[in-house]
């Protein structure tokens, strides 16, 4: 199994190295869809709930547990489907070696992060999942795409910084625990900096999953770049943030305050995403807001789990995420077929699958919602989740309307419809087959009438609301992708630019000869004075 793990991480990197040879480049590009195969096999072996861990010399550790395996499997599947789509799409296109390079690097990190068992590997693979995305987003694009790429990278780098701080604090205040994540997180509640670490973890990974108000980069990022790339970025790499939360929140300990805050943040994000998504006119941005909403719900479930000390929250969220991986990826791939006409049955299929986000009965999404029912059973929480489901429904309908009405994409990115259909169709049976293993309950319980009713009413209400809005011709205001987040980013960009200019001016001053020598003399005097005043006697 350890070889499978190594193969999973190294195969894409090896393929990336092969890109150096011009002769092999087309072969590698054609084989993009094969790179995630080891991951799929690996996930299949561990979805049942066994945990295996491997430690290498140098304290590198890999862990394959159920939450990791669930998301690993789903992501691998999406990467395979998107990989084949990408190969076809790239055929004959300029710069495909470049695209394949960024693709393979992201792939390696995006899958590896699910099995990383020590802080260093995790940090490395997390970075690998985040940073090369720039090349995918900015591929062949203009200034707008490059800016989207820059913003994505900036968000990723800031997240990396916060996470590094959290990791080091974890290590420092759990002396003698080594670098493996599990013992470190187990020692976390007794750390004097527990609150700080949890805050850093939540903000750091929250940035990755677009937790409002840290979501501004996500709609910008998903609106740019080739759709085949957006599919994997939205479906697969965003889950790196989720696995981060699962791994680094001490879910086994009841931490009501921290859990409550995360729950609240997640729910706010869930509702915010659903609501603000309605103000978008680009289907890609709508999907991005849907991601914000969905990932917000997942964070909320984790928060609820943390508040209650429910260790199983991790598995449950991972299970719910499986559906999101495939459907979100699939929907983006579908947008890539827009140059062709989308048949009515296709739209229906997409609608059915997307309504799974709202918990439409018989979808895999419904099973996901059932799985976390127990954790979110308290009155207000449950109500808010239902409200989020209503919002999701309205958002999905808005999305479908946009897709149907969309004129031909100005630069069609013709992808084969087979790809998205495969992803969408695979999701539901996958969820059904995994349900029992995750919850321990039979999947048939999802077919009980009262359960069906519980699941169906928010969808029905949402549908009614959506229909009513459409019928009344209500015009919601239109906001730029990223709404206040985008404003925030623009302001930050301006301020950062101003700050950088000021720093550069200061540096120019400082490196003038008279200034520098004067500083040297001043430093000399200061140094001796400090020594004399504070120094030893």
């Amino acid at each position, binding site marked *: 199994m350890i070889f499978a793990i190594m193969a999973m991480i190294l195969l894409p990197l090896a393929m990336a190295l092969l890109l150096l040879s011009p002769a092999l480049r087309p072969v590698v590009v054609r084989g993009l869809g094969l790179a995630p195969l080891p991951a799929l096999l690996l996930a299949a072996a561990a979805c049942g709930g066994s945990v295996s861990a491997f430690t290498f010399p140098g304290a590198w550790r890999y862990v394959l547990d159920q939450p990791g395996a669930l998301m690993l499997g789903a992501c691998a599947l999406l990467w395979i489907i998107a990989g084949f789509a990408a190969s076809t799409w790239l055929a004959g296109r300029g710069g495909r070696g470049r695209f394949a390079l960024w693709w393979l690097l992201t792939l390696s990190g995006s899958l590896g992060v699910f099995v990383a068992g020590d802080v260093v590997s995790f940090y490395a693979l997390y970075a690998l999942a985040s940073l090369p995305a720039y090349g995918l987003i900015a591929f062949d694009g203009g200034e707008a795409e490059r800016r989207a790429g820059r913003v994505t990278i900036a968000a990723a780098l800031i997240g990396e910084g916060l996470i590094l701080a959290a990791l080091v604090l974890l290590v420092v205040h759990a002396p003698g625990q080594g670098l493996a994540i599990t013992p470190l997180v187990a020692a976390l509640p007794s750390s004097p900096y527990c609150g700080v670490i949890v805050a850093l973890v939540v903000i750091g990974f929250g940035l990755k999953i677009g937790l409002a108000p840290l979501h501004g980069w996500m709609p910008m990022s998903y609106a740019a770049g080739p759709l085949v790339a957006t599919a994997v970025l939205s479906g697969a790499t965003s889950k790196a943030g989720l696995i981060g939360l699962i791994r680094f929140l001490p879910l086994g300990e009841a931490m009501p305050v921290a859990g409550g805050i995360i729950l609240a943040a997640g729910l706010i994000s869930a509702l915010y995403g659903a609501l603000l998504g309605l103000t978008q006119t680009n289907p890609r941005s709508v999907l991005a807001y849907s991601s914000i909403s969905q990932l917000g719900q997942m964070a909320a479930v984790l928060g609820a789990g943390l508040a209650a000390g429910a260790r199983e929250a991790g598995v449950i969220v991972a299970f719910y995420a499986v559906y999101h991986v495939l459907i979100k990826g699939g929907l983006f791939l579908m947008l890539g077929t827009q140059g062709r006409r989308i048949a009515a049955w296709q739209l229906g299929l997409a609608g059915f699958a997307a309504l799974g986000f709202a918990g439409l009965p018989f979808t895999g999404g419904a099973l996901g919602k059932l799985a976390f029912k127990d954790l979110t059973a308290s009155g207000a929480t449950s109500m808010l989740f239902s409200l989020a489901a209503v919002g999701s429904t309205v958002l999905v309908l808005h999305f479908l309307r946009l897709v149907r009405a969309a004129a031909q994409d100005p630069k069609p990115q013709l992808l084969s419809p087979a790809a998205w259909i495969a992803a969408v169709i695979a999701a539901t049976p996958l969820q059904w087959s995994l349900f029992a293993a995750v919850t321990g309950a039979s999947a048939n319980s999802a077919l009980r009438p009262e359960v069906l009713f519980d699941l169906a009413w928010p969808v029905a209400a949402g549908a009614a609301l959506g229909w009513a809005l459409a019928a009344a011709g209500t015009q919601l205001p239109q906001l730029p992708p990223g709404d206040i987040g985008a404003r925030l980013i623009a302001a930050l960009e301006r301020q950062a630019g101003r700050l950088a200019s000021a720093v550069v001016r200061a540096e120019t001053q400082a490196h*003038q*000869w*008279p200034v520098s020598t*004067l500083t040297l*003399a*001043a430093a*000399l*005097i200061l140094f*001796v004075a400090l020594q004399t005043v504070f120094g030893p006697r």
Partner: protein
Amino acid sequence: METAFDIVLALLLLGVGGWSVIARNMMTAVIVFIAYGLLLSLAWVRLHAIDVSLTEAAIGSGATGLLMVIAAHKVAGDTKRVVQLSRGFHALAAVFAALVAIGIAALAFVLPGEPVSLAAPVLARLPESGLGNPVAGVLFVFRSFDTLLEKVVLLLALTGVWALARDEDWGGVPGLRLFPERHSVLGLLARTLPPIGFVFAIYMTWAGADVPGGAFQGGTVLAAMWILVMVAGVRKAPRVSSPLLRLAIVTGPVVFLLIGFLGFLTPGAFLAYPEGFAKPLIVAMEIALTLSIAVILGLLIAGPPKGEDAP
């Protein structure tokens, strides 16, 4: 009387040194600096450091001064002052500089009371080397490693100066021709002085083992003679690629290194002298060094090679 002399000398040093710092005209500043160097060698005499005094006069004032005169002569036209400093900045610089000076001056009163000195240990072990001059003993026996490295520094300085030749001039002749026309007085001097200087230099080197003097002082005198000859145009400088010149440059360091390695064989340590052979070896080394130092100093002052037909 002596104290009065010292007070006048110290004040003169400060005054002349300060003048060279604030002088507007660069050539004035440089000439003042040379005068300052001569005053300084007097101060060294007053500090009972004759070896240093000779070196200061030869190198610190003489050779350095000559280099700076040449430079000041060539850049005399420079007027551009890109950075205009404000009055406040000048004041700030003056304050900081004064603070540094006051801080250092104050140390005179707080230096640990017991003067420390290695004079006794030096004298105790000097007889092993057969040398009579304790400074030479430090330079060539106890800390000969420093002296060896200092020779490498000189070689490197030469490399650094040569690095500034133009590629097309490489291999040519160093361009120290201040007076293109034959100059009668200079020519006369250049013909009569060198033999005297040569003898004097040999003496200084030879004597350096026992009384103040040594390879550096001797080498400087030789270099001065050589420069005089070159400046007067009596003899052309050799091409920098000339094998003979290269040989002269490296002779000193090679002999030094060889004697250093000889120490590995007997008595068994790098730069240690075989018992009883210390003095002859050191004198041999000094002679070789005098030659190399003279050539290197001359070349350093002559500057990078110039093309044959450069003006």
